[in-house]
């Protein structure tokens, strides 16, 4: 057994030290104060909720980023020939290692992330990589989930179940204010330029909200199927989501009984299962998913095979023809088919017959095995022209350090 122990220690050597003591202390103190308030006031749940909303939603008025939506691009057959990294400017008081959960819009112009300043969590929104807008973070939210080209941002907390029902909540930031999405267990997972949101309410019912203040409207799913994430909504209203065979139940803990398949809903239309090839390298394909949709294209993956023979590959669907294309193994893939491939630690943007290196920041070369000085790209715009992510520049035996980067590819 010593071997397993040694390897676990070797893995843990790469952890670094996460000094979150002060953040935890401050947030823990807030929580204690809230608990006392709740006890002392003998307040009803409703009143406490109202108080929390009053206390925690935007106290600092934030100007809306001035954004003009640009027309949706058509799939870029002529790809970029070079990608150039630049550090994203950070708001005052936010350190480079305090930026998490980066998401981007379909144009590549708007990026949003959760970050930390001295007072606590903030939402940071960049437009064209320029000086960011800072918005107070809704209390309890844990992640940025989607960003629209008009600068609207979904932020979500999934905090378990109560009486067998999900308790998740989503907040929408747009026009300088933050709104809580309505519906029991509301979970917003995609938002488009018109402000339409797609997501789930209690018992995994697939819904849309026509805007952040609207009530949820049920979206039809085929009999015997249950919706789940990921999901996305294109600017033309096309929705892509994952449906599982079988029903959702509290036992065993919210699992589906069958495989999941990627579906699309054309604007106003009924669900259509995305076509998959019968086999993948000779293995019967038994699952698919679609997690991005834009300009008549969807991106996702398919899988087949069991255990160690399990194989997954990124895929791209042409929604006009239904044609599916299986792409080479990659870490990320955009609806137009641009993907991020990692080899010996180095990243490459690949698509449409071209391959462009994704370089690290000058002065911070990545190591050959990609363990230290690792690059992670989290955002690939549909047309592959904008990437965003993080470079780990942790020194040997040092504290974790990161750079928050945006690449423009031309």
């Amino acid at each position: 057994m010593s071997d397993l122990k040694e390897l676990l220690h070797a893995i843990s050597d790469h952890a670094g030290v996460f000094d979150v003591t002060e953040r935890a202390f401050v947030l823990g103190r807030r929580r204690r104060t809230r608990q006392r308030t709740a006890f002392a006031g003998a307040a009803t749940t409703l009143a406490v909720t109202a108080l929390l909303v009053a206390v925690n939603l935007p106290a600092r008025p934030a100007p809306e980023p001035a954004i003009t939506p640009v027309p949706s691009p058509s799939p870029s057959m002529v790809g970029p020939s070079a990608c150039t990294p630049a550090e994203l400017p950070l708001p005052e008081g936010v350190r480079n290692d305090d930026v998490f959960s980066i998401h981007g819009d379909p144009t590549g112009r708007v990026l949003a992330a959760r970050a930390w300043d001295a007072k606590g969590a903030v939402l940071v929104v960049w437009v064209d990589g320029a000086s960011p807008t800072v918005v107070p973070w809704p209390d309890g939210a844990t992640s940025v989930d989607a960003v629209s080209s008009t600068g609207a941002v979904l932020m979500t907390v999934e905090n378990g179940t109560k009486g067998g029902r999900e308790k998740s909540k989503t907040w929408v930031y747009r026009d300088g204010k933050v709104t809580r999405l309505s519906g029991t267990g509301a979970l917003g997972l995609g938002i488009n330029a018109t402000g339409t949101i797609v997501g789930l309410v209690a018992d995994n019912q697939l819904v849309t909200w026509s805007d952040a203040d609207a009530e949820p409207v049920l979206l039809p799913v085929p009999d015997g199927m249950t919706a789940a994430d990921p999901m996305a909504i294109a600017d033309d209203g096309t929705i892509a989501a994952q449906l599982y065979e079988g029903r959702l139940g509290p036992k065993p803990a919210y699992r589906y009984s069958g495989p999941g398949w990627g579906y699309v809903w054309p604007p106003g239309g009924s669900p259509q299962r995305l076509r998959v090839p019968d086999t993948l390298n000779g293995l019967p394909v038994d699952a698919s998913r679609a997690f991005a949709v834009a300009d008549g294209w969807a991106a996702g993956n398919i899988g087949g095979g069991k255990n160690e023979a399990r194989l997954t590959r990124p895929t791209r669907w042409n929604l006009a023809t239904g044609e599916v294309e299986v792409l080479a193994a990659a870490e990320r893939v955009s609806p137009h088919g641009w993907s991020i491939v990692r080899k010996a630690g180095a990243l490459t943007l690949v698509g449409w017959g071209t391959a462009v290196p994704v370089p690290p920041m000058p002065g911070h070369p990545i190591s050959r095995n990609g363990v230290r000085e690792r690059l992670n790209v989290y955002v690939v715009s549909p047309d592959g022209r904008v990437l965003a992510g993080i470079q780990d520049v942790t020194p040997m035996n040092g504290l974790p350090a990161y750079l928050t980067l945006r690449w423009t590819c031309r």
Partner: protein
Amino acid sequence: MDDEGFRDFVHARLGWLSRIAYLLTGDRHAAEDLLQNTLIRLSSRWSKVVAAGTPDAYVRKLMYHEHVSAWRRARHLRAEYTTAELPDGAAGPDMAAETVRRLLLEQALAKLTRKQRAVIVLRYFEDLSEADAAEALGVSVGTVKSQTSHALARLRELAPELHVLVKEPNERAVGAVRAHSRNGVTA
């Protein structure tokens, strides 16, 4: 609350807790989130924890609970096969054997369920007894036994190259037989 006591306690254990969080999540950002959420909960109950006199056991329990409840909240198979993040390509040919083995184990751990991963970290990284692991996870000793057995069998399946390290000294023959015969590993 004894603010300095909290800070001193956490500072003294930060390195160790960071390692555990990283082993449980396999990702620095997720590890940082896990550690932070754990410490927020610890901070909000610090006076009671100190009064009870077992802060180490309690912080362990908090972290594993936080980790596994993230699993419970998965209304989707986020942590398992169908993630939006596709797996890494093959490791480069120029890595040292030790590095390759470490990466293989990292990849195999990523395919375990959260509970299985937790039990591997508790038993083989923290070196806890089955009883202490059961206490940390809030489950029975029998559950720890069966989860450990399932986790090791799964590691064997996922990373047959690492067979020497998944031989459990007191492993019960049941539960592991399939994997052994499949991969030609001797129990």
